[in-house]
């Protein structure tokens, strides 16, 4: 599947190309534009946006929500069609997980869990699209329209730590918000400061509890990123190294990945529910 540039690229270049982002940002000289090389992208620093992963992320999220809304508007209680049944089963699956895992009253949690689950699932599923199909077409367009040598174009948003950490940090903000709302500022601080060893050990408690708290969003975001990044990297290695023998290897890894894709989406959703449930728990 590396036919697009196998002759002109080394395997290393091929993989680097596939792991780079199409970046739009502020060049060191102050003007905004696309980065044409990885070095240019690196120079942009924080003031840059990954057009490819961001675009796919928004497109997939919007497609999911608009489609669900369309099905929902046409839904009937008496005579559901096959599409409605499918969407309803997803809905009920998420609803049941929320009912089991979240024991407080908050009407935002279930829609949040649904959004997280389906959105992450779709973003992960982009990993199953053969690595050069869309990227290859985009590279051709980039070459002939925008004058790139090798225009990078990543299609799996969850292999971008910005995307996964963007999700997990948003959830972290909700954790802090609901913790303070339900336990009070003092209660929330007390949880960090007076456990597990009582108030005389406060510095020690804080040393344990603050990393525990911070580990939640970081592990949540990095777990998803790591799994999908590793999966994508293996697809790239197979494509870059195995030549014609790559097809059965791709197949085997894709089958395995069909398990990883929903599993990671599920884990992300469950942890979101569990963390937010803990945030709603009154101080003990």
């Amino acid at each position, binding site marked *: 599947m590396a036919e697009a540039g196998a002759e002109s690229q080394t395997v290393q270049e091929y993989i680097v190309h596939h792991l780079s*982002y199409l*970046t739009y*940002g502020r060049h060191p000289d102050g003007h905004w534009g696309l980065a044409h090389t990885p070095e240019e*992208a*690196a120079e*942009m*620093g*924080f*003031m*840059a*946006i*990954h057009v490819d*992963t*961001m675009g796919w*992320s*928004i497109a997939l*999220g*919007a497609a999911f*929500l608009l489609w*669900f*809304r369309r099905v*929902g*508007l046409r*839904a*009937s*209680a*008496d005579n*559901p069609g096959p599409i*409605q049944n499918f*969407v*309803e089963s997803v*809905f*009920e699956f998420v609803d049941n997980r929320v009912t089991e895992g979240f024991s407080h009253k908050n*009407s*935002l949690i*279930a*829609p*949040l869990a*649904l*959004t997280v689950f389906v*959105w992450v699932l779709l973003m992960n599923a982009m990993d199953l699209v053969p690595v050069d199909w869309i990227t290859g077409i985009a590279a051709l367009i980039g070459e002939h329209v925008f004058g790139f040598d090798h225009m990078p174009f990543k299609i799996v948003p969850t292999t*971008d*730590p*910005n*995307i996964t*950490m*963007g*999700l997990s*940090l*948003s959830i972290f903000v909700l954790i802090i918000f609901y913790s303070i709302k339900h336990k009070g500022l003092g209660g929330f601080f007390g949880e960090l400061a007076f456990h597990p060893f009582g108030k005389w050990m406060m510095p020690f408690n804080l040393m344990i509890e603050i990393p525990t708290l911070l580990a939640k969003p970081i592990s949540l975001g990095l777990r998803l990123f790591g799994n999908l990044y590793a999966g994508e990297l293996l697809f790239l290695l197979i494509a870059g190294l195995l030549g014609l023998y790559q097809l059965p290897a791709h197949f085997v890894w894709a089958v395995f990945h069909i398990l990883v894709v929903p599993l990671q989406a599920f884990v992300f959703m469950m942890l979101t529910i569990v963390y937010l449930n803990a945030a709603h728990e009154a101080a003990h």
Partner: protein
Amino acid sequence: MDINLTIIGQSVAFAIFVWFCHRYVWPLFANVLEERKRTIADGLEAAAQAERKLETASRESAQQLDEAKSSAAGIIDQANRRANQIVDEAKQQAQVEAERIMTAAQAEIEQEANRAREELRAQVSVIAIAGAEKILGREVDQAANEEMLSQLAAEL
């Protein structure tokens, strides 16, 4: 890792998507499922109610049947009694009538017999005289034998 504005873009997109889902997607399905749940619950409730109604109805019908049976038995009993009474009355009347007829017949017979006797009595003197005339070959003076003749008639 190159962390950049994308992380903020993703957070904003996430917030908007969650808001949209909360506002425009989740309620649609929640309503449909709620409605379906209600329909099923209503159906089950209606079935249970129908069962209860059936039970009540069959109990009522059994009761009514019992009542009808007992009242029919009462009516038959009454009818039987009435029939017996009528028969008894008829028998009694017939007996009375028969006795009356018999009495009347007896009275008539007696009357007839008396009348016949009277007639015979009235005719006895004539027959006796006629008989005596035949025997004696002569006329008998009725007036002379008046006493004897009326004595004879009285004996009849």
